[in-house]
Structures are given as structure tokens and as C-alpha cells.
């Protein structure tokens, strides 16, 4: 019994059916808990005032936006190497979730930027590379949409995802080089001294956990939908073929 057994679509759907409500429940719990905790039970920051609370949406969504692409990268590699359909479909399913996360991070960032930097948007390296990531998501999704044959689409998008990852990384460094930014550096690293105060930190962790779980749940749900769409397509094709022969 290997882990690849779950790469069979039927097996995957069966296995995830009982998991799905739990994932959603847990995600909801963490999110609601974390957000309430963060919004109502933490003090205002001495410099930023109440605006600091947007961090509970901004940071988790930004994190997940990047991690979604990583997950797609891994899934694409698995598809190319082992040709498991579930893997390709999971990558496809993750893209819209990832792009939504990117959008949420962009929007919350912009809303936060207005009081903090006095502008909705600045061509800061962090922000800019995020916008580029957004473009990569768009291209990836557009390519999926444009190709009729699902296996060809899976192959081509996988290659695009890999090549895109290289260039996304490259852009990241290029942008850094291009402009020194306004945006915060990493402040969540575990060993850093200038970590955000604990009082902001724990609810933030809860929110991050919530976003991770939410992402997981949404990707599971969407993967199952994609599998069923493929299944319907396959059944229709077969029915049509049978009909054509009679």
C-alpha cells in the first residue's frame, strides 16, 4: 500500500469525502477564533492604531498566495513524472484559490497602505513581485482554459508552472535589486528579535492556521469537483461513442 494509491480519482474522492467537513469545520474554527481574538481582544498598536488589525487577514493570505503556487509546482512535477490525474487536477483546482488569496493580500495591503504610507499603491519590491505573481496565476489559468484536451492542457500548464516558478523567483530578486522598499521585512521568523509582540503573534498564528486549513479545504473541494467534471465528460464521451456505433 503506497501513498500513490490515493492518486486514483475514485479512491481520492472516497477518502476525502469524510475529511472534507472536518477540514472546513476546523478552518472555520481557527479563522473565526483567530479573527475575533485578533480584532477584539488585542490592544491597538501604539503607532499604527487599530489599523494593525488588518494584519490578521493580510499576512495569512499573502503567505497562502505564495504557498499555493508552491503546491501547484509540486503537483505539476508529480503529474509530469508519475502522470497521476488527481495531481494535475489539484494543481488546476489550486490556481483560482491561489489567485483569490493573492487578490485578498493585494486588497488588504492596499487598504493598509493608505493609512500607513499614505498611498494605496507603491512600486515597492514586495508589492510588485506580488503583482507579478498575480500575473503568473492569470496566465496559468488562461492556458488551462484555452486548451480543449485535458491531458494536453495538464502537460502544458505543468511545464508553464515550472518555467514560471523559475522566472517568478528571478523576478523577486530583480525587483529587490530594482527598488528598495517601504514594506516590512520578514517579522515572523521564529528566532528574530524584532518579532511582533506576542500579543499580536498568537492570534496571528491562529489566523494563519485557519487560512492554511481553508486553503486545504477549498483545494480538496475543487479537486473533487474537477474530478467529477472529468468523470462526467468521460461518461458522456463513452455514451456518445456507444450511440454512434449503433
Amino acid at each position, binding site marked *: 500500500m503506497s501513498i500513490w494509491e490515493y492518486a486514483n480519482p475514485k479512491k481520492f474522492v472516497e477518502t476525502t469525502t469524510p475529511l472534507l467537513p472536518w477540514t472546513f469545520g476546523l478552518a472555520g474554527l481557527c479563522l473565526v477564533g483567530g479573527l475575533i481574538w485578533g480584532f477584539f481582544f488585542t490592544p491597538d498598536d501604539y503607532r499604527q492604531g487599530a489599523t494593525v488589525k488588518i494584519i490578521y487577514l493580510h499576512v495569512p493570505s499573502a503567505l497562502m498566495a505564495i504557498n499555493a503556487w508552491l503546491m501547484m509546482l509540486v503537483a505539476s512535477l508529480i503529474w509530469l513524472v508519475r502522470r497521476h490525474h488527481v495531481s494535475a487536477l489539484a494543481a488546476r483546482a489550486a490556481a483560482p484559490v491561489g489567485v483569490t488569496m493573492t487578490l485578498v493580500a493585494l486588497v488588504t495591503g492596499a487598504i493598509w497602505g493608505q493609512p500607513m504610507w499614505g498611498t494605496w499603491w507603491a512600486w515597492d519590491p514586495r508589492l510588485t513581485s506580488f503583482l507579478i505573481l498575480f*500575473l503568473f496565476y492569470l496566465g496559468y489559468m488562461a492556458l488551462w482554459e484555452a486548451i480543449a484536451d485535458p491531458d494536453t492542457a495538464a502537460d502544458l500548464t505543468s511545464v508553464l508552472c515550472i518555467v514560471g516558478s523559475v522566472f517568478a523567483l528571478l523576478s523577486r530578486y530583480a525587483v529587490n535589486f530594482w527598488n528598495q522598499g517601504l514594506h516590512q521585512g520578514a517579522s515572523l521568523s521564529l528566532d528574530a528579535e524584532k518579532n511582533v509582540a506576542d500579543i499580536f503573534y498568537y492570534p496571528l498564528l491562529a489566523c494563519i492556521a485557519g487560512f492554511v486549513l481553508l486553503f486545504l479545504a477549498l483545494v480538496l473541494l475543487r479537486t473533487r469537483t474537477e474530478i467529477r467534471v472529468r468523470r462526467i465528460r468521460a461518461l458522456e464521451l463513452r455514451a456518445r461513442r456507444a450511440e454512434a456505433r449503433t
Partner: protein
Amino acid sequence: MKALILRDLRLAIRAGGGFGLGLAFFLIVIVLVPFGVGPEAAVLRRIAPGILWVAALLAALLSLDRIFALDHEDGSLPLLATAPLPLESVALAKAIAHWITTGLPLTLAAPGLGFLLNLSPAAYPWLFGGLALGTPALSLIGTFGAALTVGLRRGGLLLSLLVLPLYVPILIFGAEAARRGGDGLEATVPLVFLGGIALGTLALMPFAAALVLRINLR
């Protein structure tokens, strides 16, 4: 004519993207410019209206060669020419379909994207108005250009070469309107000119395009 517009729209959507693609391209150009020019907000604000207009123009341009090329390749064009639909209507229908898939989404999105380039708030209505009047003219002129180059290999670049000079007045008036608007000045005059151009192209271009198509089909 409705049939043709609907078919073209359906083809655009079916072939992936449709409306979204033009928009995405627009977004990309807007993102690229700061990379080239540098991120200073003041400089960007200064050039924002011009860049937005140039981007709209390029988005229109990039999709032009497909207006007739596909119909030429698969042999639909002679069939359409012998259909009861006059070629003038064909050209107009093509222009309308092109505008719906590129010009319209651009017009709707441009004000929203302006803020990436720090466009000054006063410029928004003028930008929007200018694009609403200018993009149909872009599509109409583009249809003429596409008709002129249909069947030519490497039509793409030649087409841009032919069409871009025709686009210049639209660009000048459109960008001028947005720029004046951004400086808090009155900008109805360039808009009126734009409207005139739009009406003029609407009256003339379908006929010119049909004429040229007929010659190309011989």
C-alpha cells in the same frame, strides 16, 4: 450581422479568455512600464494618462490581425463574401465584435488600473470618456487595417505599421483629455474631437474595409 457578431464573440470566448485576455494584457503593460521607467510616483503620475492610452492602443493592436486572419485561413471569407450579407456589414460586425472583446473591457477597467500608476483622481472621468469614444474608433480603423493585410504572411507587424499612424490623432486627443483633466483643466475640446473621429470612422471605415476586402479576395 447579429449572427456574425455572436459567432465572433463565441469564438473569442471558446478559444479561451475572450474578454479577460485583453484586460490581462492591459494590466501587464501597466505593470511593465514602471519597471522600465522606475518607480517614482511623481514621474508615474506625470506619464500615467499617456501610458494608459498607449497600452489601450497596443492591446487593440495585438488582437487586430486575428480579425480576418482566421476567416481567411479556414476559407470562411469567400463564403461570407458570397453570402447575402453585404461585406460592409461583415466589416462592421467584425469591428463591433473586436470592440466588445477588447475596447469595452479596457474602457471599463482603465480607471480602475489608473491607480497603479498614481493617476490623479481628477483625470478619471476624462480618461473614461476618452476611452469610451476612442476605442470604437481604434477597432474600426483596425478592421480596415486588418482587411488591408488579410492574406499577407507576417501580417502582424505590417498591420501595426499601417495602423499606428492612423491611431496617432486618437492617441493625441485621448491622452490630452486625460492629461488636462488630471491638471484640473477643462478637457471637453479634445473629447469633442475624439467623438468626431469616432463618428467619422464609423461612417467611413466599414466601406473602406469592404472595398479592400473585395480587392483582396479577387
